């Protein structure tokens, strides 16, 4: 699903944000990407979404060569990657239903598709009672569920979550993680960038640890590590 070969990214000449990263993530995997601030997590995610290009190396996402890709094709790459962020990125003037439907509208899905897929995904994330609520009427956990529903409504082969539980309390975070786990069970690849130690330790999934732009550890059924 994701393949990086000798990928480096330098913003400034002296200190690379990513250096010689070699990674393979298979279809249907559940992976944590851990590391301190400045370790290169954000750069890693931006490269996958092709918000930036690597200085050197090859990147393939969902069978597409991200580096050689023409600019106009980037939107079609992003339709294969559902994105979830720490700050939810919901539109405040739209209801739960409208926020999720928006993701389908803007990629040109028909009204019929929208009417069947949106209720379905809202049921999956457990928000069927809140379809007409606006974001400011929802708790943080509920808002994150809306944003997961929006990321997943188009059934992309992979979900990318950047600190999805960063703004949530531990109990709510647990709910979000088990939701992501359930989505993973449908065959969707999940990549979560986080520094939520308890979460990583309790899930026992593959962990890729970054430090100073290099992969220092890659273990299946791993823990957060770093010993501090």
């Amino acid at each position, binding site marked *: 699903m994701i393949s990086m070969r000798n990928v480096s990214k330098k913003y400034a000449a002296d200190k690379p944000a990513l250096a010689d990263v070699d990674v393979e993530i298979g279809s249907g995997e559940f992976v944590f990407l851990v590391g301190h601030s400045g370790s290169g997590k954000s750069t890693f995610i931006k490269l996958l979404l092709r918000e930036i290009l690597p200085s050197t190396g090859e990147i393939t996402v969902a069978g597409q060569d991200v580096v050689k890709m023409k600019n106009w094709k980037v939107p079609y790459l992003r339709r294969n990657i559902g*994105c979830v962020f720490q700050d939810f990125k919901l*539109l405040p003037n739209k209801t739960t239903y409208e926020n999720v439907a928006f993701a389908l509208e803007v990629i040109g899905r028909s009204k019929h598709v929208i009417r069947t897929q949106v209720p379905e995904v809202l049921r999956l994330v457990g928000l069927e009672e809140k379809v007409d609520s606006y974001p400011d009427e929802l708790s943080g956990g509920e808002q994150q569920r809306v944003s997961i529903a929006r990321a997943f409504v188009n059934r992309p082969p992979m979900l990318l979550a950047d600190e999805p539980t960063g703004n949530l309390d531990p109990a709510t975070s647990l709910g979000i993680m088990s939701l992501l786990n359930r989505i993973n069970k449908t065959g969707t690849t999940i990549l979560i960038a986080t520094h939520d130690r308890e979460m990583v330790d309790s899930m026992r999934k593959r962990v890729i640890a970054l430090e100073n732009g290099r992969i220092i550890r890659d273990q299946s059924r791993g823990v957060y590590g770093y010993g501090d």
Partner: protein
Amino acid sequence: MGINPGYFVGEAFQSFRRNWVMSLVAVTIIYISLLVMGAFFLTGTLLNKVVSSFEQKVSISVFLKDGAAPADVQSLQQNLVADKRIKGVDYVSKAQALEKFKERTKNVPQLVEQLRGNPLPASLEVSLVDPRQVREVVKTIEADANLAKVIKNPGNPEADDIKYAQEVVDRLFQATNVVRLFVAVFMVLLFIVSLVLIGNTIRLAIYSRRREIGIMRLVGASNWFISTPFLMEGVIQSTLGALLAILTLVLAQSFIVPWLQSTLRFLPVTITSAALGQLSALLLLSGIVIGLLGSGAATRRYLKV
């Protein structure tokens, strides 16, 4: 794909409502630019009519001496007809000249009664393809060897024998050229201002929707899908300005032209419906081009698509 085209129009109008002050300013400036352009266009068509009616009157008259040999007159006439700058050459005999004189002076018949015999000369009336070439053609006529044989005063033909209305034409063309230049410069300035203003309203529209745009990018909306509502907004603004300008001009000319007709009886002042059709097409097209250019530049710059 089931994209509803109403989506783009709806988005564009919504944004119009959101930034209505800036939109109003942009529409007003486009309206003024196109109004100037259209007014100039209409004045131009009127002036063209007037000028061409003058142009038909600008012919060169070569007066022939009595008893000029018909063969010489004919060979001069043939030489002139062969000249590409000359539209036609009419021979007016002494009798015809007298008829014309009677016609012109029929309000004062005593004038003709006092004439003894026919003192009017025969003449060649030379009409031109382009009246601006009058002087050159006169030079050519003067250079013709046959001329000396058929006129009274070969030493100085322009004293009596060759007549033409050069100065009227010259002044007319000078005046219209100056006006044309002035209006062209003014219009370029107005167009630039229109472009900047449309660009600015689109920039504001993009800014007020930056969250939505960010999410659209995130979920993979294509570039054209993101930028079309903004292009549409620019085109709607400029089309509105154009329609208002067309309406104003059509109304204005329906009052002004009859008034001109009654004040300037001796000039042919009319605007055909074909000219009004051209005017509408011109303004609408210019408006759409301005709108597309302005909003296109803004989306390119601020959406980075």
